[in-house]
């Protein structure tokens, strides 16, 4: 069980670099009546159309505790938290904050009652400054003449980022921020007010290890002040590090709530998935063939510099690094989305240069983007139309489409990838995240590629779907495809790749064979000795 191993191996945990929650909080959570819960939810039910998203869920959050909420995608975690934060109205059930029954009409009501939330979506107001982003929807300081007091806002914003230990230009429009900094601004925003409870929905998905540590220190400060924290995450190692109690949701139902000491990760995965997971990662020996893809001195200003990289047929090359290291940009450049400024690309020894994705696809290169909803899928389209979108020129006759042929093609891939949940003529938006991800891979496989560039293929995917995707990657390697696996999950790269290449600030900083690669070495190469955090990317 890799997750468990990983937890044990994690350097941070062992030397106590991750602060664990305060002993006081642990006492409270395990003792009987430490006072009213900050949040108490009873019998909450929410339906969307005919689908019941959560069904009679109970949940509570005590002051000063970290309560982790786990479950597969679609289990109802986000729905539950959005109700608590006033974004959705429940169909049934009660919500209490500090012992009083409340009805929130909007997020503003929730914030007024002391419930803050860090949303999963990295949504900021692109044209507003960082400082102003913290204040949208809140009471803003006024100057003597009644206008907004910008100086006070900036000062307060700077102070806020200082407590987070992060240096950021608060006057910069948010559209210039890197992904990691967006996440940090959202965290800062949630912590701005005088919150009694803070909901964190996947807060670390774009953060570097060091920033995660800072966040955990902040959480510790919060709990010491008696603030309750709901921690929603897919990363079980984090959950075990930071949480006092864990609640598991599955299919909209509340399965179990228990102190962290009473659960281990194997048990937790079993509760989440509903069955024991024999093995998450699948690896069979791969037969490496000739060089399929070779990059020589590839550069694009301010994104990546002087990249040399080779991938053989049948080889899975893991590309590790922090978010913003230039990995996505590199893959997109190979795929013809971003123009290469200098350097050469060879496919099967032949020099190529792509100016559009079509050209890349024609040479057997496909890219599976990390942003499933905005870059990968046409959500209102039926499943079949998504899967055939890239190969319409092949299955259309003289430009004319044939529904039966499309359906047959789709069925072939849908079956092979065990895409479940809906008929292929249903809109793909009805599929769960994991199945959408599989459909996206099916779409790329329909192009019959020889080289696959997979960008975070398991992001936001539940454990069950992850396992299937790993099996698929392994199978593709065995079939002789050349695969570039971009991933920010270290264990994924270490377990799946034949070779690990590490990028930092646009350059390749290290390359390890499968047996040389360890978490420590990869991390060190990815973060560098003097890691810079928080600098705005312009």
């Amino acid at each position, binding site marked *: 069980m890799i997750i468990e191993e990983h937890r044990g191996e994690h350097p941070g945990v062992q030397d106590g670099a991750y602060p664990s929650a305060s002993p006081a909080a642990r006492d409270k959570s395990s003792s009987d009546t430490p006072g009213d819960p900050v949040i108490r939810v009873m019998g909450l039910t929410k339906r969307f159309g005919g689908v019941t998203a959560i069904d009679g869920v109970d949940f509570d959050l005590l002051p000063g505790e970290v309560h982790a909420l786990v479950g597969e995608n679609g289990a109802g975690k986000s729905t539950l938290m959005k109700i608590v934060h006033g974004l959705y*109205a429940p169909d049934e059930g009660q919500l209490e904050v500090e012992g009083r029954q409340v*009805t*929130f*009409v909007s997020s503003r009501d929730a914030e007024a009652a002391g419930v803050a939330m860090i949303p999963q979506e990295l949504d900021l107001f692109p044209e507003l400054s960082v400082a102003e982003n913290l204040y949208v929807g809140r009471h803003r300081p006024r100057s003597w003449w009644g206008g907004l007091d910008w100086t006070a806002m900036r000062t307060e914003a700077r102070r806020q980022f200082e407590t987070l230990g992060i240096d950021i230009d608060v006057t910069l429009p948010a559209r210039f921020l890197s992904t990691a900094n967006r996440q940090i601004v959202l965290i800062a925003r949630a912590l701005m007010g005088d919150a009694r409870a803070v909901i964190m929905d996947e807060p670390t998905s774009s953060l570097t290890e060091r920033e995660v540590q800072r966040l955990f220190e902040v959480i510790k400060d919060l709990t010491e002040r008696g603030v309750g924290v709901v921690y929603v995450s897919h990363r079980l190692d984090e959950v075990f590090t930071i949480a006092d109690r864990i609640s598991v949701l599955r299919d909209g139902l509340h399965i179990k709530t228990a102190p962290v000491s009473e659960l281990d990760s194997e048990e937790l995965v079993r509760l989440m998935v509903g069955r024991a997971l024999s093995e998450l990662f699948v690896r069979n020996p791969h037969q490496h063939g000739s060089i399929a893809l070779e990059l020589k001195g590839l550069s694009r200003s301010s994104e990546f510099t002087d990249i040399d990289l080779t991938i053989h047929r049948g080889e899975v090359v893991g590309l590790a690094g922090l978010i913003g290291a230039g990995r996505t940009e590199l893959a997109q450049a190979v795929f013809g989305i971003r123009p290469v400024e200098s350097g050469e690309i060879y496919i099967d020894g032949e020099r190529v240069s792509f100016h559009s994705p079509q050209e890349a696809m024609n040479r057997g290169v496909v890219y599976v983007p990390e942003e499933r909803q905005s870059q990968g899928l046409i959500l209102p389209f039926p499943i079949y139309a998504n899967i055939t979108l890239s190969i319409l020129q092949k299955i259309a006759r003289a430009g004319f489409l044939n529904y039966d042929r499309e359906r047959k093609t789709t069925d072939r891939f849908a079956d092979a990838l065990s895409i479940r949940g809906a008929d292929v003529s249903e809109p793909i938006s009805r599929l769960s995240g994991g199945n959408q991800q599989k459909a996206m891979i099916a779409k790329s496989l329909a192009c019959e590629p020889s080289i696959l560039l997979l960008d975070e293929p398991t992001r936001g995917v539940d454990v069950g779907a992850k396992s299937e995707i790993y099996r698929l990657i392994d199978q593709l390697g065995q079939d002789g495809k050349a695969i570039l696996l971009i991933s920010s999950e270290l264990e994924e790269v270490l377990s799946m790749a034949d070779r690990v290449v590490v990028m930092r600030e646009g350059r390749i900083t290290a390359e390890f064979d499968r047996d040389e690669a360890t978490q420590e070495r990869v991390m060190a190469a990815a973060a560098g000795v003097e890691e810079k955090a928080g600098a705005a990317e312009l």
Partner: protein
Amino acid sequence: MSMKRGSVPLRWIAVPVVGLMLFAACGESGVGQAPESAQGGGGESRICMMPKLVGIPYFNASQKGAEEAAEELGVDLTYDGPTEAKAALQVQMIEQFIQQGCQAITVAANDPNALAPAMKKAMDADIRTGAWDADVAPDAREVFVNQATFQAIGYALVDIMAEQTGGKGEFLVVTGSLTAPNQNAWLKEMKERMADKYPDMHVASLEPGEEDLQLGIDVTTDYLRANPDTAGVFGITSVALPGAAEAVEQLGLDGKVAVTGLSTPNDNKQYIDAGVIEKFVLWNPIDLGYLAVHVANAQIEGKMPESGTFEAGRLGKVKMLAPDEVLLGPPVIFTEQNINDYNF
């Protein structure tokens, strides 16, 4: 929660309420009864008459005269036109007049040739055809009711201007759109008159006011700024003249820059009173509408003379310019003395 639930009925209510508001607003005004047909006694003959556009005082005045004549003659009158002066819309309405079973159709054309095919179709359907105010191609109508000849208007304008500027100087002409055929024809006559009789008078520039009062003011202002030695301004549409006069008044050039043109008396009374305009030209649109209906009725009854004069009710005898052209009379020149005698 309450808001989200509440919003559905609110949305339902929003549209009908707005609709009702708008209609209520119209109802209250008490103007505009929809069908514009004056029911005559016999109701046998039906005359369909189309202005260039509806909703402007000039054609409202013609409508008044037309309705007067219809009542006198005991015929059905449909008086309707497009809300914008577009030939294409007129074509469409002519076709619909044909469908409606009119015995005579008479139009004020936005474009002489564009309306021709539709008018020929009316002829083919055995409908009497005519034009008034602005002619269509001669082979596409049986008769034209001419308010005043292009020559008479063009000459009168130039003569009035010459009186005020001593027969010399550079002039600005503010027109409607650059494609307006009547205006272009008057302009041609004006230039001819200048060349023949006043060799020191020249049209220096032609600016479109696009039948927009403000635009007319702006182009005149701009032009007079750039060319301060301009002797006078012609405003040759009913909108261009008050616009030109307003610009001259605002620039404080009244008395220095002469203004004249073609327009309706009500819209220019204030400039006559203020002395910005001394004289301007038009015909009586009420009489024009009145005459057009009389002519159409005579066509239906087969009583159109080929030459000589035509007997038109209270107007008495009017002149036949040609076998297919009736002339209302000489243009009316409006001055401080007579302007209060007219109300249109």
